[in-house]
């Protein structure tokens, strides 16, 4: 069971889990997309993730999440350096749908600067009527318009 209050969010429907770092060491962040974003995309069939060592510039497009019917962009939610990518999700992109907050994480990064991020409550407010209360575990979230969308959905935007 995910503790959502421990996560930070962006308006691009990404979540960030900040790891409590040892004193003196850089702080790391695990990054994924929310169940809402995954639901909007529909069945994810391919993820294109930045390589380890790649520099992230806050707000820049660093990857893609492709479903059968649309393509979402992965925006860097912070400035930093990629230290790990989830190769399991590259092999089994459906993890983004089945467990977006867990096994479906995308990249881990060391960050040098952290922008202002949304709290869970703020993110819920952003979603409004589509709030994640439908199914907070996100295991079978069924997005509002994931069927037959021929539009380029930015990751959930």
């Amino acid at each position, binding site marked *: 069971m995910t503790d959502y209050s421990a996560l930070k969010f962006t308006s691009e429907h990404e979540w960030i889990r900040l790891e409590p770092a040892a004193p003196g060491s850089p702080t790391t962040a695990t990054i994924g997309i929310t169940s809402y974003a995954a639901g909007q995309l529909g069945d994810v*069939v391919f993820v294109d993730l930045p390589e380890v060592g790649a520099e992230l510039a806050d707000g820049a497009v660093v990857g893609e999440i492709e*479903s059968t*019917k*649309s393509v979402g962009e992965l925006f860097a939610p912070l400035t930093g350096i990629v230290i790990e990518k989830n190769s399991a999700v590259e092999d089994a*992109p459906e993890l983004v749908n089945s467990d977006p907050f867990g096994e479906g994480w995308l990249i881990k990064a060391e960050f040098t600067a952290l922008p202002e991020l949304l709290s869970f409550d703020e993110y819920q407010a952003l979603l409004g009527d589509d709030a994640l209360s439908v199914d907070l575990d996100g295991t079978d979230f069924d997005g509002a318009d994931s*069927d*037959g*969308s*021929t539009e*380029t959905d930015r990751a959930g935007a």
Partner: protein
Amino acid sequence: MSVPFAERHIGTDHAAQAAMLEVLGYDSVTALVEAAVPASIHAHSLGDGSLIPQPATEREVIAELRTLAARNSVKRSMIGLGYYDTITPAVIKRNVFENPSWYTAYTPYQPEISQGRLEALINFQTMVAELTGLTTSNASMLDESTAVVEGMLLARRASKSTSPVFVVDADALPQTKALLATRARAVGIDLVELDLATLAPADLPAAFGVFLQYPGASGHVWNPGEIIAAAHDAGALAVVAADLLALTLITSPGELGADVAVGTSQRFGVPMGFGGPHAGYMAVRKGLERQLPGRLVGVSVDAVGNRAYRLSLQAREQHIRREKATSNICTAQVLLAVMAGMYAVYHGPDGLVRIARRVNGWAQDLAAILTAGGLTLVHQDFFDTVTVRLPGRARAAAEQAHERGYLLHVVDDDTLSISVDETTTAAELMQVAEALDARPDGDARYSPQSSLPSELNRTSEFLTHPVFNTHRSETSMMRYLKRLADSDYALDRGMIPLGSCTMKLNAVTEMEAVSWPEFAGLHPFAPHADVQGYLELIDQLETWLTEVTGYDTVSLQPNAGSQGELAGLLAIRGYHHSRGDVGRTVCLIPSSAHGTNAASAVLAGMRVVVVACDELGNVDLDDLRAKIAEHSSALAALMVTYPSTHGVYEHDIVDICRLVHEAGGQVYVDGANLNAVLGFARFGEFGGDVSHLNLHKTFCIPHGGGGPGVGPVAAKSHLAPFLPGHPFAQKIEHPASSGGTVVHGGGAVSAAPYGSSSILPISWAYVRLMGSEGLKEATGAAVLAANYVATRLRGHFPVLYSGENGLVAHECILDLRPLREATGVTVDDVAKRLIDYGFHAPTMSFPVAGTLMVEPTESEDLVEIDRFIDAMIAIKIEAELVASGEWPADDNPLVNSPHTAQSIAQGEWSHPYDRERAVFPVTSLIAHKYWPPVRRIDQAYGDRNLFCACPPPEAFE
């Protein structure tokens, strides 16, 4: 006295139209259309000034076409350069090329009712992938030269090199070089031409890609392995244009290290047709699949786990990824790819090798005769093309040959090249030798030895799958083609009400001339004197199209709508540049536009800026003004579809055009929806500077299951100098609507000067049969049908957008989102359930997700239109039974659709509705039922487990 053709073409007769008008509350069709089309754009009547002649009967039109055909002179073409005479197996000609079950089908976006052509296309992909020695082939490209361009663009995407250079082999086809020049210029690529056959690999310059022709345009066969390796060392991709027939004898590009292979499948049984249509191809090595442009067929499973075919990786394509797409290509060359694939099915690997050896044997024989006659060959290693030196007399010799009935390629004043093919005979070689004044002692004879470098002998197997080794008898082939055709739903079964696609009648009389030898048998670079009938037909068609669009001149060269868009945008670019306005690069595109618009703009070197639409679906004028102000000096163009992709005649179109012109921009009117205004309004009159038309929509060229298409570009005279030219054009003048001629001086966009010429007689015949009045009546009937559907269905499904007086144009968008909210039934469920009712679904989720866009066209009769409306209403009632709890949300006739015969016959029936409801929801189906061959196809499975070749037979057990 025969019935006027318009009455055959238009499905609703006077009585039916009267009944429909009564439902709508209008007195006449004209009154209806004039109430729908804004008064500000009503066309002026041309009256007696019309350039379109009075309608002819079907019999008269055939006679006129015979007269035009007689003015073409079919010589024996030995020009080569990517076009060869070929023998279309009669069983394929009759059962595919001339069979409406194949040529009237639509693009297989509804895979459950397209399994036949999807299998045929996967045969094509398997054939191309195995012959080229690469992993994955698409299906298909528009022609060889555009495929090379796509290869160049793919190399730039995939290469890590930062170099702007693309190296081009000096021995590439001349028309390919011309296209590369046009296209590279627009996107900032530097072309460097080198003689790669003699270049030391170490001297290869820094580049993102290297292109070579294999065998070369001169016929020369050499081993490019070292050049390819050197390209890889430099971080470049190797793109190889290869001849599929030659590849049965020589080492494949894939085995030589190529990353991308491209080419044409024309010589696999598809007539030259004065340039097309033929299927180009592209295959890539493993790892580049996602970089492929165009359509890719893959294997997936259906709801019960059976193998099923579908289009894969659609998220690469322009309709989803828009300006970030891998290409703007949309319509491909499905019918021709099917034919080429079936040629390989019928001949099999052994048969293809036999044909190739025979061709190579004749080439050797020709070389022997010419050498014995004292002439010198340029290359000793060749497959089918012999290049010979004739110092100072090449042109005279070619003229001699022409008089004897042979067409040779004049390379320069001192050199000729001569290509042989599947149809070559000994007598022909002797005559050619005589024309060249090479007098051999003996007769021509077929030589068994090889003229190919032994190091390039092909050793790898190909086409081992049973499908290429089974259908050798004509009976077997006929039945295979029939089985596949029976799997599919085409216009010969019923209505295909696809919004934005205009699936109207493709009349047999219109189709007749396509396969006549005088139209089918000509090489695209045949001399002017031999193609008089074609040129006259082309001039007439161009003239008629200027009249109906209100433009000054037309180019028929673009061989698909996407290429027409590109040609139009390149003309705009050329115009701005000619005035020194090189900074005008912004292309405004409304958010409702077809994705192809944005993809084309990028390929024309423009930057896309999206203009918002308002809640009524129209261009938001305030946002347009804001975007124009923001980009004023950088504004190149606005691309706008009319009527809009929302199926509405935008009231403000005149103001929209004016605002763009005032800011120095040009207006591109996308003509995809021309069927809604033809005869009532003209793009050129209300503000357009340039448009493309889709002859495969408005002017009756059949969709062919996803191509061929023809996308002429029509423009005002100020853009004429920048419309497509061609190095082999038989003439550069084109008729101007005001009389006289204009010259099209832009770069080539298709491999052939008049694109897919052999299908132009279809559109010519349509206009000739209908006349101006008939065309106008067709528009009226199309608008009437769409408004009738909208009015009758409005009470069941909201009609999302409408214009003046609450009317739609030639199509209407049914909003299924409220149905989903109320019942959980999705647009997918409705689309697939329509299959059980015997219909092809309307366009799904374009331009708005969760909707269906219905375009009945003028060709459907009232019975069929009512049948569709009744089906939609019945499905709505079924959805309500789901909502009311009568049927569970996860087990009802909608979510389980489509139902196959097997699904109702096999095992226990455990569903809460009966079998009869499943497959015969209306009683009329009992006597006439289309059975889909598969259940609903799992889209995600196919993309996650990409497999794009013939699956092994055990997969079907």
